[in-house]
């Protein structure tokens, strides 16, 4: 039987992480999916081979516009691993704070988008409003709201001013009631539960088989987190716990991300209290021949960097693996058997760049005629929520 094909994507060049999903549908059901990536491939691994070790930090910072610190974090971990050096303690605390602030703003951004696609535009507006104070902290600490340029091999580039600490503490503590509100809004809302529970399930077996990482894995009850498993920076010097949830569905992914934000606030507050005084940089001059592996638990999961050096000024091989690379592929499992109106939120649940879905179009495979575009599909999703709302309010 000929299936209709729904192309989602490919992308808008201004968004990060473009991808192209081709959904094969039989009526409302998704029966197969073909995923294509590479539309914005920049060959950063090759560019890296022509830059000095210091410059590479800036290059990799530009891999992602949202979690811009994740790649420098993993890269500097890889260089520190290659050198076998111990970075000054104060620098480790500063790195941890930047990493966790980033998780906060990235999860809030995702929460807003997830709300929008489910038809909860208030959640969208609120989540993004609440994200602003985090960006204000970034601006105060690093001078930038994005692309902080704080990391360098062997330390950090800028120190943090202790005079800012009370204000940072207050800003973060003020965030807690907001998080409580989101937690209540998600966990207690029957409509959100109806839209997300049991939708797009990844089992533990799937997680292992597809090598899934980050919140996507933890929402299936697999407690993997590089911060705990392979501790780096100051993550083994503060108290915190890995958040897991058993469902494996979109709801579980929502819950894991919301609860992780509490842990991030917790980690940052402890770091501010415990941060020792002292140098922030080892002033590394030469990189000897050798190889190193660095990992960082980015908001979306494990970032993996491998560096091979021959003792020259540039790496001779720099392998980069971002978490979405593993997670997007798992959609092949999660989305099959679900309906078109749920596909948007399932594809979004792994937190790839969501904006790509704005360019969705339903095309009749035989005639090539456009039936629905991205807005129609979002409307479809939002209408389903509205129907459920009516049903629950009766």
């Amino acid at each position: 039987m000929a299936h209709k094909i729904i192309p989602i994507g490919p992308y808008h060049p201004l968004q990060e992480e473009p991808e192209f999903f081709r959904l094969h549908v039989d009526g409302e059901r998704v029966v197969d999916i073909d995923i294509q990536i590479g539309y914005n491939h920049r060959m950063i691994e090759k560019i890296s081979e022509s830059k000095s070790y210091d410059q590479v930090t800036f290059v990799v910072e530009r891999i992602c516009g949202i979690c811009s610190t994740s790649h420098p974090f993993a890269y500097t971990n890889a260089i520190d691993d290659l050198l076998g050096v111990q970075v000054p303690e104060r620098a480790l605390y500063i790195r941890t704070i930047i990493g966790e602030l980033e998780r906060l703003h990235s999860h809030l951004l995702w929460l807003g988008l997830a709300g929008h696609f489910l038809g909860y535009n208030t959640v969208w507006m609120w989540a993004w409003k609440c994200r602003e104070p985090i960006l204000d902290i970034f601006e105060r600490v690093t001078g930038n709201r994005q692309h902080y340029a704080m990391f360098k091999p062997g330390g950090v580039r800028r120190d943090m001013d202790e005079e800012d600490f009370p204000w940072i503490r207050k800003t973060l503590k003020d965030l807690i009631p907001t998080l409580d509100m989101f937690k209540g809004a998600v966990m207690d809302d029957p409509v959100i539960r109806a839209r997300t529970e049991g939708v797009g399930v990844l089992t533990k077996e799937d997680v292992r088989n597809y090598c899934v990482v980050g919140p996507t894995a933890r929402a299936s009850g697999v407690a993997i987190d590089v911060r705990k498993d392979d501790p780096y920076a100051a993550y083994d010097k503060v108290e915190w716990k890995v958040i897991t949830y058993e469902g494996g569905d979109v709801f579980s992914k929502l819950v894991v991300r919301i609860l992780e934000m509490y842990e991030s606030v917790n980690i940052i507050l402890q770091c501010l209290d415990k941060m020792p005084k002292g140098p922030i940089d080892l002033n590394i001059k030469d990189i000897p021949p050798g190889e190193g592996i660095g990992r960082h638990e980015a908001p979306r999961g494990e970032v993996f960097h491998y560096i091979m050096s021959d003792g020259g000024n540039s790496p001779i091989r720099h392998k980069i693996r971002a978490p979405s690379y593993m997670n997007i592929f798992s959609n092949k499992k999660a989305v099959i058997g679900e309906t078109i109106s749920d596909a948007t939120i399932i594809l979004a649940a792994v937190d790839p760049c969501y904006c790509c879905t704005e360019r969705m179009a339903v095309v009749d495979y035989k005639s090539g005629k456009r039936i629905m575009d991205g807005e129609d599909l979002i409307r479809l999703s939002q209408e389903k929520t509205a129907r459920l709302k009516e049903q629950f309010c009766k």
Partner: protein
Amino acid sequence: MKKEEIIQDIKHRLGNDIIDFNDRSERRVYITIRKTVLLDLAKHLFSVIQARLCTLTGVDTRQGIEILYHFSIDELGLIISLRVILDKPNPEIDTLTSLIKGAEWIEREVHEFLGVNFKGHPDLRHLLLKDDWPEGDYPLRRDR
């Protein structure tokens, strides 16, 4: 299982098929092996020790095309990198996709950038390069 046990076990299993062993640090181990034993060892790491495949790194070196299979044992925070060296100009090795579904994209990427033929791979189309990229031109080869 502790790190020492895992390593002893691997050494015992492979015997002479280990070309080089580098216990680099507490959480990083590099093992160069013959390519014929890769699939068995990967099966052991994935199914018995429950390791996770992080990714593959392909490097074009003087000796040939080196491929590193980075396996992460998350309970120990340990990364075991299995290194195989494939002969140029037509490097070939068995695919891991029958064992680990997640290896599909990773191997496609190594294939298009270094021209490694993964025997038994279900779908070796381009992943990141555009569809009309010239046949036989591999961007990460140093002899281009």
